[in-house]
């Protein structure tokens, strides 16, 4: 793969995405700390998973190694399992 230095617009796009995703992560952290109820915090987990997928993709663009896409697949699967597990756990806590 060609290096990013040959394409200044792509270089800018990659660092711009890193900046946006970092700001988004801090926004999620705010909601995680301030969220009034437990479902708020679980919702943040969903957001953070999407942000990590975005970060991995930006890192693929930065390094030119599409192998890291495997990690995105695993995270996309795992966060669904986490969501369902949390929903079941909360449901059981209501029923008891």
């Amino acid at each position: 793969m060609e290096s990013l230095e040959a394409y200044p617009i792509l270089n800018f796009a990659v660092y711009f995405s890193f900046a946006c995703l970092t700001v988004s992560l801090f926004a999620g952290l705010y909601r995680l700390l301030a969220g009034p109820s437990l479902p708020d915090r679980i919702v943040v987990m969903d957001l953070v998973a999407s942000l990590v997928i975005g970060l991995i993709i930006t890192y693929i663009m930065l390094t030119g190694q599409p192998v890291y896409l495997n990690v995105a697949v695993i995270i996309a699967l795992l966060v669904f399992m986490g969501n369902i597990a949390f929903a079941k756990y909360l449901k059981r806590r209501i029923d008891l």
Partner: protein
Amino acid sequence: MMEWIVSILLISGSLFMLVAAIGVVKLSDVYMRMHAITKAASLGAILMLAAVLLWHPQWIVAIEALMVVLFVILTAPIGAHMLARVAHRMKVPIGEGYVMDELQEAIDRKEMDPDAQEEGKSIDAEKL
């Protein structure tokens, strides 16, 4: 030419994710925050995957990007649906300015008339 398309896809995808995060901070209750995340963040991930696929046009990248898109599209609505029902069951308060709460209406109707079989079957408020 290709680097412009890839750059636009990357920037727009990350901006959609930023919009989702701003929605998580600014919106006023759980249900609205879920709405922000499941749509905007999924669209952002899909746009960024399209950027990677255009920049590395290989079969393995295409298959894995399609798998990620499929998982995100399939699982985000299901997870949000289950979480929203559980949050409604936990009596998480709804924010200002909502118009109707059809799930609460269905639960009330069922509690008033527990013998209504067809009503209970169609709504199924007991089953989460």
